[in-house]
Each structure stands twice: as structure tokens, then as C-alpha cells.
């Protein structure tokens, strides 16, 4: 039964990823680059969903992880002259440490307290970037364009900001994230995480040490968010505090819920729809925030399960 749904969902995701792959040859320039950005942000949302959707922990401080990865990679390139890959790994390692430390403390709380603790840690991180501005370039942030090396494929040089490089790197990241979360969800661990979401104390009384599984989920989610951030720094060559602000912690909540929390592919849809919604609205009215807010409210009232969540309930029972 599980095997069947695993195959179905891999096929389903494979189809969507294939579609994304093909799209790059037909999309006009602007949408080509928008979709690359969406895929990076969606990876962030997938990572976030891992915590919110599958473990049932809502964090208001995830921008901290995204920014941690982004700054580690960016500053690594700027000061230590790391290679792109090196920066990526450095970003990953740094966020791993951060999220581990963070988890050890934050997971002592749960529910609303957890939410506020994450918010506070996030703010602290944001403020510390401002405070150490001599080192981090403060609010202005900095551009990597001049410091980032070139990517060599078949001894041909490309910029990381080259549209095709960007698109396909983003696609690879997204694919990896979707694959990993799907596999985890179908593994015994995934089963336990879902159990924690459904009923924590009962899971404990089945003999599972819930704390460690929550820590695992948080560290994975945090580190993946960090890698997404590092990737963002590489492909879009700008590092700034805007990615550490609370708004950037709220965005993935919005994307995940809209797409469907607890569905592997949902966050991708959520991110895409929100991105284009904002893009189109801001062309029409100067108040896209109004729309974002309205969407949030209406969604939580009428659509608490999000798009894929509803689909799963109705038709695609096998959806992870």
C-alpha cells in the first residue's frame, strides 16, 4: 500500500520536475528567471514544511536559518575566497551548527512558546547582523558579483548568474529536496514524525523519545533552509538583512499553508502562486501587501489544508 503511494508520488513529482525542466526552453526571459527564483524559494518552503507540515512545529524564525546559510556562504566567499561549492558546504555546516544549538534550547518549549522563542531567536540573529555591520555590511548588504568565481563545465566558463546555470541549479536543489523529503516521509522516521504531529504524548508512550525526533526534524529543516539561502546567495549574488527580517520568516508559512502543509509538493505550488500573485498585483496596485494579508486570512478560514492538502483529501489519497 505504501509502496504504491511511494511510486505514485515519485511519478507525480517526477512529472512536475520534468515539466519544469522542459519549461526552461520555452519560457520567455523574465519568467525563466522568475521560475528559477521560485524554485530556490520553494526549496526553502519545502524545508520549512518539513517542520510545520510533518512534525507540526510552527517556527517564526526560519529566516534566521536562510540568512545564516546565505551569510556564511556570502562572507565565506568575500573574506575566505571560498569556491562556490566550498561556500555552499560552509553555509550548510554553519546552519547545521546554528540549528542544532537553536533546537537544543527551543525544543524545550512547544506550541505558542516555541513560536515566540523562534521569533525572538530570529530577531536576535537579525540584530546581530546589524550590530556587527563592520563585518557583515549591515543593512545595505553586499554583492558577490565581483568575488564569485566562474563555473566551469567541460572547460567552458559560466557565471553563476547565467540564466541557464541559475535555472538548472535551482532545479537540482528543488529536485533533491523533494526527493529527500519524499523518501523520509515514506521511511519509518517519517512515520514517527507524522505521529508526533498527530499526538505527541501517545507517540512518547509507544516508546519513542519524541525530543530527538523533533530535534532531527528541526536540524534537517534548518540546514536545508540554510542551503537554500546559500544557493540564493550564489545564484542571485546579493546578500542582505532583508533575508533575515521577520517578513522572510512569515513568507514560508504563507507558501506552505497555501500549497498545503504536510504535502511534499505543496510548498512549490504555494510559492509559485504567491510569487506571481505579488508580481501581478504590484503591477496593478501599489498595495500587494493588502492582497497577501487577505489571502492569508481567507486561506486559513476556507482552505486550512491548502491546495494539495485538499486535493489529497478528495482525490490523491496516496499523496505524501
Amino acid at each position, binding site marked *: 500500500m505504501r509502496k504504491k503511494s511511494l511510486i505514485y508520488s515519485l511519478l507525480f513529482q517526477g512529472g512536475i520536475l520534468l515539466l519544469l525542466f522542459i519549461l526552461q526552453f520555452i519560457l520567455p526571459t523574465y519568467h525563466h528567471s522568475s521560475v528559477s527564483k521560485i524554485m530556490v524559494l520553494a526549496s526553502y518552503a519545502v524545508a520549512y514544511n518539513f517542520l510545520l507540515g510533518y512534525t507540526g512545529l510552527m517556527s517564526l524564525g526560519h529566516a534566521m536559518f536562510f540568512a545564516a546559510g546565505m551569510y556564511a556562504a556570502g562572507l565565506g566567499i568575500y573574506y575566505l575566497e571560498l569556491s562556490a561549492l566550498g561556500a555552499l558546504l560552509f553555509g550548510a555546516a554553519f546552519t547545521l551548527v546554528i540549528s542544532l544549538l537553536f533546537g537544543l534550547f527551543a525544543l524545550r518549549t512547544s506550541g505558542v512558546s516555541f513560536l515566540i522563542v523562534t521569533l525572538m531567536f530570529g530577531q536576535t540573529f537579525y540584530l546581530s547582523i546589524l550590530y556587527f*555591520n563592520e563585518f557583515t555590511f549591515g*543593512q545595505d*548588504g553586499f554583492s558577490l558579483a565581483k568575488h564569485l568565481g566562474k563555473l566551469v563545465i567541460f572547460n567552458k566558463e559560466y557565471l553563476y548568474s547565467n540564466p541557464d546555470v541559475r535555472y538548472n541549479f535551482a532545479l537540482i536543489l528543488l529536485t533533491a529536496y523533494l526527493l529527500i523529503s519524499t523518501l523520509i516521509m515514506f521511511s519509518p522516521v517519517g512515520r514517527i514524525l507524522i505521529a508526533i504531529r498527530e499526538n505527541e504524548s501517545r507517540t512518547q508512550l509507544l516508546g519513542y523519545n519524541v525530543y530527538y525526533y523533533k530535534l532531527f526534524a528541526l536540524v534537517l529543516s534548518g540546514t536545508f533552509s540554510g542551503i537554500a539561502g546559500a544557493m540564493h546567495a550564489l545564484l542571485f549574488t*546579493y546578500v542582505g*538583512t*532583508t533575508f533575515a527580517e521577520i517578513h522572510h520568516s512569515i513568507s514560508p508559512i504563507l507558501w506552505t499553508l497555501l500549497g498545503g502543509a504536510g504535502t511534499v509538493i505543496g510548498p512549490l505550488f504555494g510559492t509559485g502562486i504567491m510569487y506571481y500573485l505579488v508580481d501581478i498585483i504590484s503591477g496593478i496596485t501599489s498595495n500587494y*501587501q493588502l492582497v497577501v494579508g487577505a489571502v492569508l486570512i481567507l486561506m486559513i478560514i476556507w482552505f486550512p489544508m491548502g491546495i494539495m492538502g485538499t486535493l489529497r483529501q478528495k482525490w490523491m489519497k496516496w499523496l505524501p
Partner: protein
Amino acid sequence: MVKKDLEKVDQASELNLSRRNVLGAGALVAGAGIIGSQMIDPIAGIAHAAGSDAPIKIGFQAHRTGIGALYGRWYERTTNAAVKHINSIGGIAGRPVEIITEDDGTDPKRGADVVEKLATQHKVDFVFGTLFSHVVMGSAPRAGELKIPYFVVSEGYHVASGALNRYVFQPCITDVRAQISAVSGWMFNNLGKNVTIIYPDYAFGYNHRDYASAAAEKHGGKIVAKIAIPPTESSYTRYFVKIPKNTDVIYHVMVGPGVLTFVRELGEHFGPNHPQLFGFIDSLEGVNISSPGLDFLDGSHFWEAMPRYASAADSAGSRFYRNAVGVDNSGASKSDSKDVAAYSHMFGCWETLFAIKEAVEQSGYKSKKDYATLIETMEGFTGFNEGIAHPQGSKAFSGKTHQCYGQQFVSKVGNGKLNVVHKTSIADGMYEPETDYTKQSL
């Protein structure tokens, strides 16, 4: 012959300037072109019309929302006024100008997207108009990658510092480093030697801290205290106790909504016998000098890039500009006296559009493939002359730093007005270029 038709266009476009009519005007010009060059082959004629006489599209990256919204609104008004005038005098190189505006929410990440959108979706010829420095920092790399000329109106030092790339220009608003160097000399020599500087705790503030200190050495002054205030702060009283007793002048550059509070609390703190005050008008852009609680500013001095209050000294160009952007003699909107302009910054939009016009016309720019020549042409500029195109005054321009240097004003607050007491020379602000963009490849 052509010229005559162009005049017709002027009248046509002066009457009404909705986008459609601009295009109409464009077609008219096209027609003019065909007649003028006695084209016989109609196909070629059409091709010709579509080619060189289609409107020049300029993408405007506006802060309609977010912390920049106040400035953004006036930048937008100024831009529209400038375009209206440019089109009324025959557009750029005979082509009408079309502005395409996108809101960036004063957010760097959105900023990069907006540049992308303008360049690749709206297919604009140039992008211009960004103010807030972190948005510039976020957007400029994208412009460089897309290889589209990007004209900012930000007064930040990041252009001249070499932090950006060859596609980024700041042709018509003096950068903050030059502003400070120019006016702080006057401050040290006329208001006092011992200066306490109060600045916001981020990049913009650090420029003031650093270059004011540098100027202090040059003019035998002394910075007796540097007080940084976090941008989120909403009450300032507790910082004032840190101001040393021996302070002659308080140099303040607070920005954002807290400014009025700042000034009022400064007044409450010191009362009648306070040190001299020297501020940057950034604090009070869009704020009425006679707002409740500001009476304390009476007799204090401000830097202005362009005098907010009209005076007899104003040049013809300056008067024309003031009228064109719909600002009355006290610096407020003609239609709403409560709506005060960001007068020391918005001129940058007006002048930048004219700088683009000059660059396009001199380089013979036709389409995106001419970017290189356009950029080299602008890098060849050495300055702009005072006039309708440059109402703020004449400017020197450095092709190396992509940055212009203009005159600055020091104004004194008196009977609820700002009155100019000193006008710096362009040379006062100049400094050795620290970068050379012309060495970068295109």
C-alpha cells in the same frame, strides 16, 4: 521641414499626454521622418518608423510602499513632470519617452526582481530612480548581470565607492560623502569646533560619522562624541545625556518617522540655551518646518541640496522646475499645503532623465545594442550646466566614479522658513576618485 512637424508634435503632446497619445505623437514623428527624408519605399518607411521612432521606454523603480514610500511618492511626481516636459519638447532624440513604473516595496529582494521585470518583461531601454541605498545594493548586481544601464538617484556613496558595476550611474545627485565634505567645512568654521554627531546606526549614518570626522581634521575641528541611534528607536531623550558639556555644535542626521520626536525631545532636553544645531534636511524631507514641536529648530542650520523655499536668488531653471513639479513657494504641493515635498532629493529624478536624454542624443543610441556607446558617452561627460535640464545647479561629473558633484546649500531656520545662508562651490565636495569603472569590461 522635419523641425516644423516636430513643433506640431510638441503642441500635440503638450495638449494631452496619456500613453496612447504619446504613441500617437510618436507615429506623427515617424510620419515626419518619412516625409522629411523623402522616403519612397513605404515598407522601409514603416520599418524606419518602428525602429528609431518607437518610444524610448524607461523603467522607474519606485518606492511606493515600505519605509521609502514618502520619498517614493515625490520621486514619482517629479518623474512624471519631467517626462511630460521632455515629451513636450520632442522627446529624446525625437522619440517620445514612456515611463513604466514598478513598486519595489523599498525592499532589496523585491528590488532585484523589479529590475529584472523592467528589463526582461517590459523590455525597457534603461532602469532608473532608485533611492534607498540597500535597495540599490540589492538591485545593482542584477542590472550588471542583465547589462542594462541603471541610473540611481540615491545620494549614497556606494556608486562612487566602486562597490557596484559599470552599468550603474548616479549622474545628477551628489553623493553623501561629497555633501558632507562640502558643508561640514562651513559648519566647523562658522558654528563651532567641538561637534557631537548623532547618527542612525546603519550605513547612511556611518557615512556621516566617518566623513564628518575626516572633515574635522581638515578644518581643525573636533568630534567630541559620536552617538549612534538604532533605526527602530522611537524615543531619544536618554541619548541626549551622552552629549558632552563642551559641545558647540550638535550635528544630527536622524531619518525616518522618529525625526520630529528627536527634535522635540532635543528641545525639551536643552531648553533655551542649547548648543548650535546643524542637521541634514533628510530628517525633515516631507515635513513642514512649522509642525507642532519644531519651533525649537528656530535659528538652527540645515544642509539642503536644493532650497525648499523659493527666493529671489532662484535661477530661471529652478523656478521653471518648481512650477513644473507642482510645488509652491514654501515647498509644499500646490494642491495640498499639508503635503510637503522631498525637495532636496526629488530634483535628482528630473535631472537624471535629462542626463539620459543628453547621453542618448550624443551617443546616437537607437536600441539595446548601443548600450556600450551610450555608457562610454556618459563616461565622457565632464559635467552639466545649470538650466531647465539641471535646475539644482551646474555639476561636475566623473566618468571614473559614475558620480556627479554639485553645489550644496546651508539654510537657517527663521520665522518658520528655511533661508539659504551659504552656497558651497562644487570643488568643496570633490575628493580623489577611489575607483575607475571605465576599466571594467562591458
